[in-house]
């Protein structure tokens, strides 16, 4: 085998990820963001989310509920913890698995807190999600669903290989603020324009966020309602604007600053 010891690999490739690696530890980032949380029990709940303590979070939420309203345990503890996770993920200190396990801890905590609420918790909005008919690839949709739920949205997950008519029917029934479709292949994403057309026929003009392997912005903007997304992490940002009432035209106009070159990566 060739001797590679004389190769100056700096001339061949550069590990930009190592050169720009964040030096801060998760504990330091969490301490900064959670400094405003003075209640020790709420802080513990937030830390359970940040440090993925899904085994202990229910007990800690119960302890916090002794003095604090369930709504506040959720907002000032669990959601605050998830804010830290988002920061860590954005800076590359956490990767996807840490976000997923933190979201699981948060979900368990929310369930415990909700069990003590009198009415139902008010969520930010509803998103109907599906993978196109004929397409079994759903990991992107599943990641986006976790992120949307952990950001306070109701997710109606229709699964994969979902026919056009079923998507339209579900949107009519659930009246979401946003519908999403994902596809890996060029020939399955062709269902999206049909869905958009049927929704418009029924007078439903919510943004239809489309994403996936072969899906691109030019294609998605070739039919009405279509709004392109290229990463699961953009889901909550797009949903927040849909809830504000943005129509698809406004999304397209503001796309670059919202999720494009200057927006959420």
């Amino acid at each position, binding site marked *: 085998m*060739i001797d590679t010891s004389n190769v100056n690999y700096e001339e*061949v490739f550069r590990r930009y990820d190592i050169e720009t690696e964040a030096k801060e530890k998760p504990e330091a980032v969490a301490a900064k963001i959670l400094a405003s949380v003075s209640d020790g029990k709420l802080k513990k709940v937030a830390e359970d989310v940040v440090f993925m303590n899904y085994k202990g979070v229910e007990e800690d939420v119960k302890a916090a509920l002794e003095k604090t309203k369930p709504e506040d345990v959720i907002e000032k503890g669990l959601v605050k913890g998830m804010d830290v996770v988002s920061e860590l993920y954005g800076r590359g200190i956490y990767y996807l698995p840490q976000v997923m396990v933190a979201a699981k801890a948060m979900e368990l905590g929310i369930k415990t807190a909700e069990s003590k609420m009198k009415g139902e918790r008010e969520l930010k909005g509803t998103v109907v999600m599906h993978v196109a008919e*004929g397409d*079994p690839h759903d*990991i992107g949709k599943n990641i986006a669903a976790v992120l949307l739920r952990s950001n306070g949205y109701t997710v109606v997950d229709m699964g*994969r290989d979902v026919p056009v008519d079923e998507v339209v029917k579900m949107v009519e029934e659930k009246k979401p603020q946003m519908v999403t479709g994902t596809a890996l292949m060029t*020939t399955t994403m*062709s269902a999206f324009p049909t869905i958009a057309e049927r929704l418009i026929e029924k007078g439903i003009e919510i943004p239809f966020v489309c994403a996936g392997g072969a899906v691109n912005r030019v294609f998605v903007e070739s039919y009405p309602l279509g709004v392109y997304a290229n990463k699961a992490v953009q889901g909550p940002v797009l949903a927040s604007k849909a809830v504000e009432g943005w129509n698809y035209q406004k999304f397209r106009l503001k796309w670059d600053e919202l999720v494009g070159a200057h927006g959420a990566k």
Partner: protein
Amino acid sequence: MASIKRFTRMEYKSADELVFGEAKYPVTYGLGQKAGAGHVIPEINFAPRPDAAKNPETLRREYVDYIAKDILDRAITLGFPRVQLENEHIWQMVNDPQKFEKPVVAGQKEIMEKYHDEYGIELSIRHTIADPRLCEKGLRPRMDKVHNYPEKVIESAEVAAENGADMLSIESMGGKEVSDYAIMNGDIKAWLFGIGYLGSLDMEWLWPQLVDICKKNKVIAGGDTNCAGANTSMFMAGGYLDKDVARTFAAVTRAIASARTLIAYEAGATGPGKDCGYEGPILKAISGRPEAQEGKGAQCAHADLMGNLMAHTCDLWSNESVEYHPEFGGSSVACWLGVIGYECALMTTAKQLGKDKVLRDLYMAADRFKSPEGFILCYDNAYQIGEAIVGEGNDIYLRSKAAGMKAAELIDASANSKGGIRLNKMEKDTLAKIIVDLESLPDNQDKFVDWALKTYKDIPMFNPRNYGL
């Protein structure tokens, strides 16, 4: 039905025997095609435009009159002595094989025969059957009452084999519900269960049937790929701006996947294996079968960190897939055939000059330390992972675990030696956790399966019945 014959020894005596354009067991097929026989064949893959599948005639026209013709014209224009086409079937073709698949398969063969007769160009076509089976509906026959996908996969293979395919392959999906969970949660033990064990069981169900169909129709049984699993892991690990999955995790998932993909050959497939199976160097080291690979000539579809490296042991060199559309230099398929065809000309020239091992080493050296996954696929390391697999060859769990552990150890040793691979913090932390996790597992398949069935029973859509459990 074809039986499973395990690999318990390496078909190559040393890693140095592994080189592009040459396999211990070359395969002859198609219209004068020979794979692994002293040259490298460009394998051009393509995808129809979004609305091409409106009806069977529009789809046939897209695949045959436009795509196949453009490829063949460009091959003749550039003087390529041989080309393989690959048609990765779209959902419409498996959902209604008689209407959508049959005319395409027959039409492609007809036009290829015309060019072969007129110019003498060596030609072949790989039909990669779609696998739309859904674990939530059922992976085995009579389980999916909504779509009958398991039955349709077999029917689709038969239609392809009977109507003009030279070779069948598939990107089978068994274990994906668990492997997706493993990727999302960074859980290597779940991956070992999902791909090393469940994926292997699904391969053992599927591949003997495909081999029988191929034998009956005198068609080559190509091979499989863990595209659905290990490529998901690899692409989420991505490049230096991506921070979703640690690249050490992706590397170990690839090694484990190789023990699963090997089952196609154990069931009687002969290769060439599938291009997107980056586990190909490990498979070739074990089996001596020719492999298709992809890398720098597949930038139309993938951006990976081993664009040169993946050529170093290939027998066919592929573009992965490109949507049919116009470029300045002609249609996309014509342009990308040019890219891979010229690379094949370089490799074949190196073989003619007796410099193939020099070029192999240059391909390998260029990307050796660029990513952990590329590192374990370098022929010396691929060979060692192969040895770990055949050392436990008769046990699908133990050999998968051994492959994962060997890959982890190789990366760890290099990272701790001067001039070795560099890892970022997440890659280091993840590797350390993988080693601890794999070491904690039992040395007995039954114990592992009992544990895994309990631990992972709540993974959404996971149903042991899909795997005969």
